[in-house]
């Protein structure tokens, strides 16, 4: 059962200050309404994983581990690999995170990131089939939130993509009926698209991008638009207790499309730099 969350005590005090600031075009940390916080990307940090990344979006820190194993395909897609995304809101990331099974926030986050990757066909799942109906590659994306300072969706999506881009798996050859030979571990995954999630938050009557923790506590609602490399929208998710006017949705989509190119270049550059 989903229940109205407890509101953070800072919400009431800070709200007026934040709204006034934003209405004058500035935010608590001095950013302009559509600026993202500084992004740092590191990859290949967990050697035991097939791929990994550590992304910092301002003070938000997200680590992603990609593990690829062999397993059975789903019944209705016998010739496709399997993708599964899980999120842990690790208790050390925030005084508000409790240990336990994933709550609705962790689940929503995992499913939104999953949607972005799946609908954009970022991974060529068809190329992960070894023996149709019997053996395929299963990709586990585990998103580990380590420091929560707002905008977990965008940072988790960036970290997932970075980890996927730098994942290395064995080269598999199928011998005979059902024997699979694995050689080495330096083949990349078939990455075909680069979906980027852009989250907008509505505070008072103004819209900002990449909300910080304080901004999330006072926002009316958020809208995430995930855009692929061809400027196609592959996921959208409204969250929060407030509402959007259809015209606000239109302008957020425009912003998201233009911002996603910027973020995509940054990410691809950082990944390339890391690998060299």
């Amino acid at each position, binding site marked *: 059962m989903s*229940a109205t969350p407890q509101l953070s005590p800072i919400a009431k005090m800070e709200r007026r200050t934040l709204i006034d600031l934003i209405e004058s075009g500035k935010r608590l940390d001095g950013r302009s309404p559509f600026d993202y916080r500084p992004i740092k990307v590191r990859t290949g940090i967990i050697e035991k994983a097939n791929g990994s990344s550590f992304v910092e979006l301002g003070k938000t820190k997200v680590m992603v581990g990609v593990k690829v194993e062999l397993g059975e395909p789903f019944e209705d897609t016998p010739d496709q690999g399997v993708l599964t995304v899980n999120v842990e809101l690790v208790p050390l990331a925030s005084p508000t995170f409790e240990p336990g099974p*994933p709550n*609705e926030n962790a689940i*929503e986050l995992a499913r939104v990131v999953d949607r972005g990757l799946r609908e954009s066909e970022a991974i060529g799942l068809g190329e992960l089939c070894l023996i149709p109906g019997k053996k395929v590659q299963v990709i586990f994306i585990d998103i580990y939130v380590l420091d929560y300072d707002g905008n977990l969706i965008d940072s988790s999506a960036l970290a997932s993509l970075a980890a996927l881009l730098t994942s290395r798996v064995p080269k598999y050859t199928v011998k005979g009926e059902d024997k699979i030979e694995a050689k080495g571990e330096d083949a990349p995954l078939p990455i075909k698209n680069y979906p980027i999630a852009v989250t907008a938050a509505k505070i008072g009557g103004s819209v900002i991008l990449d909300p910080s923790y304080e901004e999330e506590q006072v926002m009316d609602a958020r809208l995430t638009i995930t855009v692929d490399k061809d400027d*196609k929208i592959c996921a*959208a998710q*409204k969250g*929060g207790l407030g509402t959007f006017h259809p015209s606000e949705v239109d302008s957020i989509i425009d912003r998201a499309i233009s911002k996603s190119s910027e973020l995509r270049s940054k990410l691809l550059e950082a990944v390339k730099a890391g690998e060299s």
Partner: protein
Amino acid sequence: MPRSIQNKSDRLIGKDGIRVDGRRLDELRPIKMEVGILDKADGSAYIEQGKNKIMVAVFGPREAHPKHVALTDRAVLRCRYHMAPFSTEERRSPAPSRRDMELSKVIREALEPAVISQLYPRTTIDVFAEILQSDGGTRCASITAASLALADAGIPMRDMVAACAVGKVDGEIVLDPCDIEDKNGEADLPVAIMPNLGMITLLQMDGKLSKEEFERGLNMAIKACVEIHGRQREALKNKYLEIERSMEEYGGEEQ
């Protein structure tokens, strides 16, 4: 949304623009709404939309248990979306799935802006949506029915909430996709609005849409929500008109 059409040449939309279930591209499925059907609930509603059969009950405002979940200045809205094991083609486990949890959250967030929760501090308002039979678009139908149940319970609201989805099937934007269209289509875009205030309370999308398709789909969905809202008004008024009608049937009552 698994994208595996068994036979790629199976089109879901015929050359004459007619869909698998005989509908036009912009046609809603047949809808039936009834209010106040459960005796023990404070408010209730039942909706059929195509093959969807959904029942929603509202309890509250009532005492918050346990006390620590209560909010000091408003009612807590609690919402549960749950599918009956017999609701789908293959029997499903009654245990809540990840999808159930996400839908419970987005449905609650679709209703929150409408409920004037400040009037009932330290209480909970519980909304239980049971999907008795599922055929695509259940979260939208649940929201529509939940809104009816909240109104039936006499819970003050700024506006009703009406919901409808659009999809992209065989390259076309279609209204109110059924399950087959959902599973085999290129996109699914559920929307909920407060019709009089003109504000969107639920918006999700998965699939692939250009900006223009998204906006066209959104407009189509909003128009349908307005139509659905008209049906909500009828259903709420009917509950009271029915009483008047049954009075007349038993005869002899002077006005």
